[in-house]
């Protein structure tokens, strides 16, 4: 709707596009990284599967149902993290969470996370921040578990 500035600030057009996108939806079988995340506020679940190649994440998929914020965040995350080294993935997770949780300025986001600035408006809705961070926490947890299994 034209003119609904309040809603447009939260649900930016790019978020709605990512929300509807099916590019990275699904589940990889087999997968090197596999993690299951739950948002206790709403009970939403997300499953992240990924394949590693040469010390990085080659391909990442997310499955489950969720709100616009959580699904768009997962889709943008997949796009940003694929092809990155695991060390870089950890840095990017940290940088994204700093923006969402510590109010770090959007301008400080690394270039790979430029699209994620669209989630800026979510910070005005503290109860929704967990929706935005769910996929990121889940992938971090999956990487730690995969690293633990190798040791």
């Amino acid at each position: 709707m034209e003119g609904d500035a309040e809603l447009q600030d939260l649900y930016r057009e790019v978020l709605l596009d990512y929300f509807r996108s099916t590019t990275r939806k699904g589940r990889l079988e087999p997968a090197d990284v596999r993690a299951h995340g739950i948002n206790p506020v709403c009970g939403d679940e997300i499953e992240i599967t990924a394949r590693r190649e040469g010390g990085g994440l080659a391909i990442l998929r997310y499955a489950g149902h969720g709100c616009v914020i959580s699904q768009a965040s997962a889709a943008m995350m997949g796009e940003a993290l694929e092809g990155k080294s695991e060390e870089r993935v950890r840095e990017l997770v940290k940088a994204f969470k700093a923006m969402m949780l510590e109010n770090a300025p959007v301008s400080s986001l690394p270039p790979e996370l430029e699209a994620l600035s669209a989630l800026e408006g979510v910070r005005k809705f503290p109860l929704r921040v967990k929706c935005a961070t769910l996929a990121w926490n889940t992938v971090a947890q999956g990487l730690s578990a995969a690293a633990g299994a190798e040791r």
Partner: protein
Amino acid sequence: MTALNAARVREDFPILRRLVRGRPLVYLDNAATTQKPRAVIDALVDFYERHNANVHRGVHTLSEEATNMVEASRRKTAAFIGAARPETVIFTRNATESINLVAHAWGRKFLKAGDEIALTEMEHHSNMVPWQMLARERGVSLRFAPVEPDGTLDMGKFRATLGPKTKLVAFTAVSNALGTVNPVADMIGAAKAVGANVLVDACQWAPHRALDVSSWGADFVAFSAHKMLGPTGIGVLWARAEILDAMDPFLGGGDMISRVTLDGATWNELPYKFEAGTPNIADAVAFGPALDYLSALGLDAVRAHEEALAARAVAMLEAEPAVRVLGPREPARRSGVVSFNIAGLHPHDVGTTFDLEGVAVRVGHHCCQPLMSKLQCGGTARASFYVYNDESDVDALGRALRRTLDFFKIATKAGVR
């Protein structure tokens, strides 16, 4: 029955004057907790300003006043629920604690491996998890009466979950998630027919419908003050005196004892046996005016008012093809709770867009994850009405709905936009 005058009622609730995100508050989350009338807020302030002291201990004036005020609230509660003996009203923190009290103090003493507890699939987590914990600890089995697709119980299937091993039947009188009003008397009758004890979760009944525990014939009834205009931090467990006498205490400490030596203790009389430690005195006192307020309105008028608003909301929501209303089709089987989903939209997004319109609804699983799984939805948006809501609140709900449909470009009754 005098019809409820919501316009006059609204004047008694200071919070309804505030703005939310620049718009007047439209509070439709009453199944979660209700707002408080001036009389309840004043009672809290009055208690702390004039009467504050510990109860059942001192012989000084304030202690006597505080004790009398708590006991007056207890008598008021007993009268409100049709309990002949005030000492069968135990004050807890909330209904969750009331149910846990029964699981610990009755369940652990009287249930053994091989016994069965019958529940329904529509229970709130608070009437499910305590039994799951007890079942694991004592080797008790849980059986669940299934919920039909329309959110009701089939009495034949309910009866089929009961048998000679059933020692307790615990169920909600009204579903918090769907508004389903269960056939409480028939269910209690079926439970008694197999010799089981019965616990009724009356959280969504006590605030909205006349309650008479003596005619129900249940053994335990639990509810929370904060869902019926009272303060948070006060819950009620009513139980038959004989069963309370037979039970062990829940928590040990002060107030619940009769005599303590280094070797042990004997228990105080009812209700204090179950009220260890300094209770939530001020909130128990302020629950009294909440009950007075509801009694003055008349529970039949409260119920009729809510049912009319719920019916109006259901009709408004169902006029939109993208909206699916859950719960019973028959208005007589629905309380003032209306749960719905918008096709293609997650309840959380519905909740946030409604909030921008000043409309407070609950979204999510409503502490009923097994029920949501059964109905194959991750959650719902839920509007729940109470005494201060009126038709303008249903209209606001409609405005919020249309704004949401417009923004997310969902086909509406007016055509695809």
